[in-house]
């Protein structure tokens, strides 16, 4: 998301929004609203002034600040300093900032983070409502349940599949795996059992064979994709590492 928003420079490839680089957008807040981390507010500045300066950068009229504060339910605390806000209130302020330019595309990074159940329900309904108005909303989340009840399309990205290994010589195997760049988690209840990440089952098996370590079990564990498949049973698209260019288009299905 940071690449898409021009905050970080990609090592290769380009990220486009509506066919344009974020950098080339005029008054970008009118095209794309983004919620990255909630804490991008000066703690000494009031919510209203935070939104006001953002609005001024795009020539958005000041009354729009009151509108978005009302939309996220922060109108009563608009003149309190943002440092006094709870995580949930900060998150709402972040949503208000994203909605300031009334954009067609919204990028929300972990929007339900730190919200109480009521807040979770609120953001879920808000996202659905905004989507039903024809906006494109890209949400990242590690909460699969949450995504299962909100998302129309899910892109699952998995970078670390894990492998379960059982061996009578687990200590030695753990050393071999660590030396080969994998990560090992021991099972406190069962000394023979290891959970390996960073290496796939074939590599772990190969290591064990070349060192003459006996294996009793070698199981690739269910990946994120499989977990998603079970949860959503349908409408799932998969993406691996390094898919590019990433693009989000106004109201278009991917």
């Amino acid at each position, binding site marked *: 998301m940071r690449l898409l*928003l021009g*905050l970080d420079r990609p090592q290769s490839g380009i990220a486009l929004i509506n066919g344009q680089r974020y950098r080339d957008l005029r008054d970008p807040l009118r095209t794309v609203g983004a919620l990255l981390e909630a804490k*991008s*507010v000066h703690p000494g500045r009031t919510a209203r002034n935070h939104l006001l300066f953002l609005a*001024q950068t795009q020539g958005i009229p000041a009354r729009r600040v009151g509108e978005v504060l009302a939309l996220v339910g922060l109108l009563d605390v608009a003149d309190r300093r943002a440092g006094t806000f709870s995580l949930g209130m900060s998150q709402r302020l972040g949503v208000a*900032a994203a909605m300031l*330019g009334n954009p067609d595309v919204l990028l929300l990074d972990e929007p339900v983070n730190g919200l109480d159940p009521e807040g979770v329900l609120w953001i879920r309904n808000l996202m659905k409502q905004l989507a039903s108005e*024809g906006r*494109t909303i890209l949400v990242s989340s590690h909460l699969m349940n949450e995504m299962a009840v909100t998302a129309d399309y899910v892109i699952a990205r998995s970078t670390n599949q894990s492998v379960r290994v059982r061996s009578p010589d687990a200590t030695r195997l753990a050393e071999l795996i660590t030396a080969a760049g994998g990560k090992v988690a021991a099972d406190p209840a069962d000394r023979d059992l290891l959970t390996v990440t960073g290496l796939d089952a074939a590599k772990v098996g190969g290591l064990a064979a070349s060192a003459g370590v006996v294996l009793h079990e070698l199981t690739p564990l269910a990946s994120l994709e499989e977990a998603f498949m079970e949860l959503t049973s349908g409408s799932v698209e998969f993406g691996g590492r390094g898919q590019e260019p990433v693009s989000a288009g106004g*109201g278009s299905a991917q």
Partner: protein
Amino acid sequence: MTATSPAAPARGASGPATGRATAFVNLMRAEWTKIRSVRSTVWTLIVFVVVTVGLTALINWLTETHWYGPKAATRDARAISDPVSFILGTGIGLGQLAICVLGVLVITSEYSTGVIRATLLAVPRRIPALAAKAVVFAALLIVVAEIVSFGSFFVGSAILHAHVPVSLSGPGVTRAVIGAGLYLTVLGLFALAIGTVIRHSAGAIATVIGVVFVLPILSGLLPGSWGAHINAYLPEQAGSLITHTHEQASDLLSPWQGFGVLCIWTDLLLAVAAYLLDRRDA
């Protein structure tokens, strides 16, 4: 995840996309909102005014009461030969610390609080954002610094008038008093540039203080004409020449040349700051 619908309705809070000039005015308004809406800015400026004018009054009062004291001869001679920098020197010498800190904080506080990301999302081309900040900050500083400079001069010269008759109509006096305000303003931009390059409050403040307060002392220790030449071109040493009423025989630069040297340092640093801001991940 994408939400779908047949056609996206036209949106945007109001009006068409803005032109280049209005866009920059918008950025300046936003930077002004940022500066005025944080208490630390306001407090630092108040401290700057009180410390500078207060210290000027105190030092000049002490000088006045000890005018005929035993060890006063050299100091009193200096007060008569260069009255403006004698009157303003101590107050501005300490007050400039507040300006250095403020210049650094207006940008590093954005990094420490994460506001920089909100700013760069709104202004992804980045360099205009820095330019707007520099222009607004300089405009604020020049007003406050000239008020402080003239205020200090009037207070100090009123206290000392029995021994050091000096008025704005004297040769070089008006230039020196206005120059003190200009010097503080450019110094603030110098600090802003260093803050943008370093991005961390503590490191940037330490660097600015090192350059402004410590380097002149160190270069003064260098032997021979080496030290004198390096010293003359340091930002603080060169820049503060403009507060001297008269050119001294030992000065290597004229007051305006010295101020020009400070401006060149500041321009170079601002260019480096703009380049790094544009290139680095936020």
